[in-house]
């Protein structure tokens, strides 16, 4: 981490810890706005922070760690893509679009949109399969549901909404964001379970003294480490160019880790972990949600498997090393 990254980490860490899962949508949004966080990945020339994807990782991971209940991660990515589209206000991102795109007007539905109510625009995969489209939501009405994470999600029904095309792969970028958030939330749940095991007594000794509990938490630590390393490597690759392979692998690996980690966190906590008043569920419910968003295990495993099989045995290792050797410092 360089100096500016340490500052970014410290700043977001203390802010998100304070706001956390009980964020006030209006007042707290103003606070992240004041710090310029939504412009994190917008070039300085365009009035942004000029950050890299590795900077993005810091913010996304920390948001995941504190189960931040603000659509900041989505706003950062949306602003990054829409930086030249001349739109203002909070943007968000969505998982899918079906419908028709004619003369830069989109009619159809956009689904899996995060916190679309109140958003000025949404970036969604283009319905014709190439790149993304930035959809102006001015005048659109978007009822939202509550996902099991407690976050808001919508399916938007749009009629002739104004759009701008963009070559970026928003589905892949969304998957990267979720990988980073999963990595952060896993670290937080691991810390929570570890602390609980040390404090809680059962059968006359601390839970942490039971070998089965120790082995489970060690397994959890390995999974959290894998998710975090994978997210870091994907961020580094994004900063160097095409990162479809790395993001696919990172989301796939994060999804695996989320499955193992949530199970162990709840197993260690026992009944208390299922109560509304105990904070573990803010993390685990988001982990379950994010695992299914922007491609689940199966989606990315299939993509990676297809690519790997098509390239064949003789290309596997050279392809893998070419990915890293381009990152020479």
């Amino acid at each position, binding site marked *: 981490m360089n100096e500016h990254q340490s500052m970014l980490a410290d700043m977001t860490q203390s802010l998100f810890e304070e706001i956390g899962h009980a964020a006030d949508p209006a007042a707290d949004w103003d606070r992240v706005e004041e710090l310029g966080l939504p412009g994190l990945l917008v070039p300085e020339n365009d009035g942004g922070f000029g950050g890299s994807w590795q900077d993005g990782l810091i913010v996304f991971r920390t948001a995941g760690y504190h189960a931040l209940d603000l659509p900041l991660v989505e706003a950062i990515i949306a602003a990054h893509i829409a930086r030249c589209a001349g739109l203002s206000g909070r943007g968000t991102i969505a998982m899918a679009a079906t419908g028709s795109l004619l003369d830069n007007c989109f009619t159809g539905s956009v689904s899996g949109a995060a916190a679309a109510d109140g958003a000025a625009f949404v970036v969604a995969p283009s319905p014709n399969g190439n790149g993304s489209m930035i959809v102006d939501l001015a005048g659109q009405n978007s009822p939202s549901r509550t*996902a099991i994470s407690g976050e808001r*999600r919508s399916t938007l029904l749009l009629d002739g909404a104004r759009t701008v095309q963009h070559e970026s792969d928003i589905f892949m970028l969304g998957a990267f964001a979720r990988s980073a958030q999963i990595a952060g939330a896993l670290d937080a749940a691991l810390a929570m379970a570890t602390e609980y095991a040390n404090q809680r007594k059962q*059968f006359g000794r601390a839970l942490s003294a039971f070998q089965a509990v120790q082995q489970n938490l060690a397994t959890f630590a390995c999974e959290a480490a894998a998710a975090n390393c994978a997210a870091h490597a994907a961020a580094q690759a994004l900063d160097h160019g095409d990162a479809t392979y790395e993001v696919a692998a990172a989301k796939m690996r994060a999804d695996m880790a989320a*499955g193992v980690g949530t199970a162990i966190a709840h197993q260690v906590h*026992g009944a208390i972990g*299922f109560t*509304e008043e105990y904070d573990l569920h803010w993390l685990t419910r988001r982990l379950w949600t994010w695992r299914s968003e922007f491609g689940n295990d199966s989606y990315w495993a299939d993509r990676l498997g297809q690519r790997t099989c098509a390239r064949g045995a003789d290309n596997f290792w050279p392809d893998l090393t070419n990915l890293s050797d381009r990152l020479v410092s």
Partner: protein
Amino acid sequence: MQTFTAQPISWPESAAELRQRARRLVAEHPPHPDPATRANCWTFADPAFSKNLGDAGLIGMTWPREYGGHERSSLERYVVLEELLAAGAPVGAHWIADRQTGGMLLRYGQREEIERWVPGMAKGRVYACIGLSEPDAGSDLASVKTTARRDGRKWIVDGQKVWTTGAHFCHVMIALVRTEPGSQRNAGLSQFVIPMDAPGVTVRPIIDLTGGHDFNEVFFDSVELEEHALVGAEGQGWHQATAELSLERSGPERYLSSTALFLELLRYVGPSPDAHVRQLVGRLAAQMWTLRMMSATVAAKLAAGEDPALEATIVKDLGNSFEQAMPELVQAAIDLDLSGEVPLARILGHLLQVSPSFSLRGGTREILKGIIARGLGLR
């Protein structure tokens, strides 16, 4: 080394008729509109349905006729239970009374208490809960601080239970409390029948992470009980309560709790999905088939008068692992917008959140595995 002795199962001749009777009752009762609730049917209380079942003679099936039972075999009871659970029928109201409390009272309870409670249970009108866990004890059930002391011919109960399923709608609790002051761990404990409307009993809800309400805290403030409220012998409460837990473990609810998810999965993927989904379905089907055979074997052993406590523990541990793994496997395999309205998304979203808690009911996995290890003779 003791383990699971497999054996052929002699299914009862009445099986087909009992299935038809159960299926008819389910078909005639409007299903709960929320698929997520159907997936957790054995925790959802619907007194109207419980009454129908009682009137049809499908509760207390193995109990003596004298107290409203039907003197059927354990395998006949098994057939009815699996039908109800597989159909996602709302059996939560009478479930504990039928599975544990009724049999417990018949075995250990005093005549006054049996006569007061059991016939109503068999009719599907009287519901029970179990007072075991206490605050700060986790799965250490011997860590009991609630006390009962003699006061003339009465017993006075003071203390608190927690994680009590269904205490908010039940009529009666069997509670494990300390009757010998100063005794430690599992010595000096006794069981009592406590009417939930007795003065001094307070129930406070525990809201779960989905916003649902299954669990409660139950407080006892100088609750007065008659002498005959004592269940079994004074000081024998631990032995009786663990035998009760072993009864709990023998039921088919463990593996069948996942049926609703499996059926929705079949509906969602249709008749000819890709190889990955096909194989997932096949693997799950093989495991369900095996668990069903194991559950039925336990019922057959009960019917033959054996005590298959270890076998029941093995089935429960396997069933726990299966039902906890299934939502995770389905989430990994099916790319699905969980916030969407398709039934599979609704059920999956719900089970992802609650399935890790399944292993807390009737003993955590570590404890079950410890029991199995002792059966193997590990020391």
